[in-house]
């Protein structure tokens, strides 16, 4: 077989430039909103941050899952996944506004002495939910994720040059298991710190897993859209086959179901217990305007994609599958809106910042992703399973 370089096509550069421009313009406009009313800016910012964080961290999880299980699906999307994990430095930067000035607007319930006086927290919570504790822990989470990012990207790059070195494959596999545990642990604590503490009197033990499952949905959706987009031009057009899309679609269905399973488990347990301090979460989210959003999430984040993804033909369809995937990314945003915003307002109406900030952060993230994608060959050339993964079975 002739040696191919599999370098990123022109279209990736175009995407990078456009995404950066759109992201920067949108961020500039949104910054005006931050000056005018930080009270409405930061909830939107947190929601948008969580969406792009999900794209990066979900990819980190999938990279490790791929090393652990080594399926053909994973070899096809490994480089896009790795490029998505390498956006984590950008996410550190994007976290700074929250750390510097956003905290006092977002976490009133445990930072504002007046609020604390009205509804006191337990001794343990008072010790845990502190300004400095929050920042130190955020540093630890990012350190864990960045370390995993460096390990898996570094070894993968070595594989490109030392193609005969089978020890690399074993090391990647050995590290992937503990890596997944670390990622989920750090994400669980991050979900508690960054989102659950918006309402510190309420607690749910499955909260971190809800975010992990949501991140896997976002990341897999993004990967499906990416490979289909890449397959429009050489060299990926010769690589991507219906069977790959079929596998990715099956995994997307599994992640959608996993997300629904976790979300429903939380509802079932809290609904059964019906305890005053727990049920508040659903009292605010299942009635009134937020009840409408809840139904939208149930129908369009679960039922519609679930029944569509059951079909084998749709999973193999290059036109339909990426549409379902992009729709799911949008639904992730609606779900995050439903998770975070009711803590600030009973009106379930998006503000102009809720439209602008996802475009701003998403644009910058996408630009950085495209930039990363150009740095390596589009396929892991040193992976022992590559030849088998991209083989065409003649019909």
């Amino acid at each position, binding site marked *: 077989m002739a040696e191919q370089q599999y370098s990123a096509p022109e279209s990736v550069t175009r995407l990078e430039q456009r995404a950066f421009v759109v992201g920067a313009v949108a961020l500039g406009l949104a910054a005006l909103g931050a000056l005018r009313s930080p009270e409405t800016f930061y909830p939107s910012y947190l929601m948008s941050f969580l969406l792009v964080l999900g794209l990066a961290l979900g990819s980190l999880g999938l990279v490790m899952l791929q090393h652990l299980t080594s399926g053909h699906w994973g070899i096809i999307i490994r480089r896009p996944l790795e490029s998505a994990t390498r956006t984590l430095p950008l996410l550190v930067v994007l976290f700074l506004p929250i750390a510097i000035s956003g905290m006092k607007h977002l976490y009133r319930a445990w930072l504002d002495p007046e609020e604390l006086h009205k509804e006191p927290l337990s001794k343990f919570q008072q010790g845990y939910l502190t300004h400095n504790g929050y920042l130190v822990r955020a540093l630890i989470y990012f350190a864990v994720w960045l370390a995993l990012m460096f390990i898996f990207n570094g070894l993968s790059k070595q594989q490109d040059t030392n193609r005969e070195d089978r020890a690399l494959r074993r090391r990647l596999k050995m590290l992937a298991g503990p890596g997944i545990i670390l990622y989920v642990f750090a994400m669980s604590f991050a979900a508690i710190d960054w989102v659950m503490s918006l309402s510190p009197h309420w607690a749910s033990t499955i909260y971190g897993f809800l975010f992990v499952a949501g991140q896997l949905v976002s990341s897999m959706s993004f990967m499906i859209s990416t490979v289909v987009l890449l397959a429009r031009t050489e060299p990926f057009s010769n690589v991507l086959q219906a069977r790959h899309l079929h596998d990715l679609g099956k995994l997307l269905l599994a992640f959608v179901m996993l997300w629904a399973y976790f979300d*429903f488990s939380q*509802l*079932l347990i809290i*609904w*059964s217990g*019906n305890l005053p301090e727990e049920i508040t979460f659903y009292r605010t989210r299942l009635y009134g305007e937020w009840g409408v959003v809840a139904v939208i999430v149930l129908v369009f984040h679960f039922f519609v994609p679930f029944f569509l993804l*059951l079909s*084998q033909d749709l999973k193999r369809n290059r036109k339909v599958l990426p549409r379902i995937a992009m729709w799911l990314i949008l639904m992730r945003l609606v779900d995050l809106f439903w998770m975070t915003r009711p803590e600030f307002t009973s009106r379930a109406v998006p503000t102009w910042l809720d439209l602008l900030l996802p475009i701003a952060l998403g644009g910058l993230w996408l630009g950085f992703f495209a930039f990363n994608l150009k740095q390596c060959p589009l396929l892991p050339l040193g992976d022992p399973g590559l030849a088998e993964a991209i083989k065409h*079975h*003649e*019909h």
Partner: protein
Amino acid sequence: MEQRSHIYGVLAEFATPEQLLEAVKKVREAGYRHIDAFTPFPVEGLYEAMGLKRNNVPLITLLGGLAGGIGGFGFQYWVNTLAYPMNIGGRPLNSWPAFIPVTFELTVLGASLCAVFGMLALNRLPHPHHPVFNVHRFKHASSDRFFLCIESNDAKFHVEECARFLHDLHAHHVTEVAND
């Protein structure tokens, strides 16, 4: 066809899956439609090469899942609101969140039972005897040989012609299969 009814078909033996795949393609090109292949393990591409149509197992599975799910939910609804209404912790009689786990389980049960038994029914299994078992060497189909059978109910079937054709495709052994 009546006068040939003592012959089930012509069976050819191949050493490798590639030879079998090649033969299947040639046989299909030559216009034979009633063919069957026997391999010790799943051979990728064989399904497509034989021109098999999609089967109905997914549809049967979907129907089984829907029946299980609707039945599971419906039964709980009927018991809790109509047949034996009981006040449990002040919750509404139609406590649908509590019904979901059982509904889910019965959806899975209905779907998987229908998938397994639907598959068996469509395959007409269990099938203790098959004419190709009359060929002594056929026992290798479960270890290291690949077989292709052109069946006598094919419109183009002719014993000598089929045998010659299969020989030309590098079959190791070509045998007539008796129908009993």
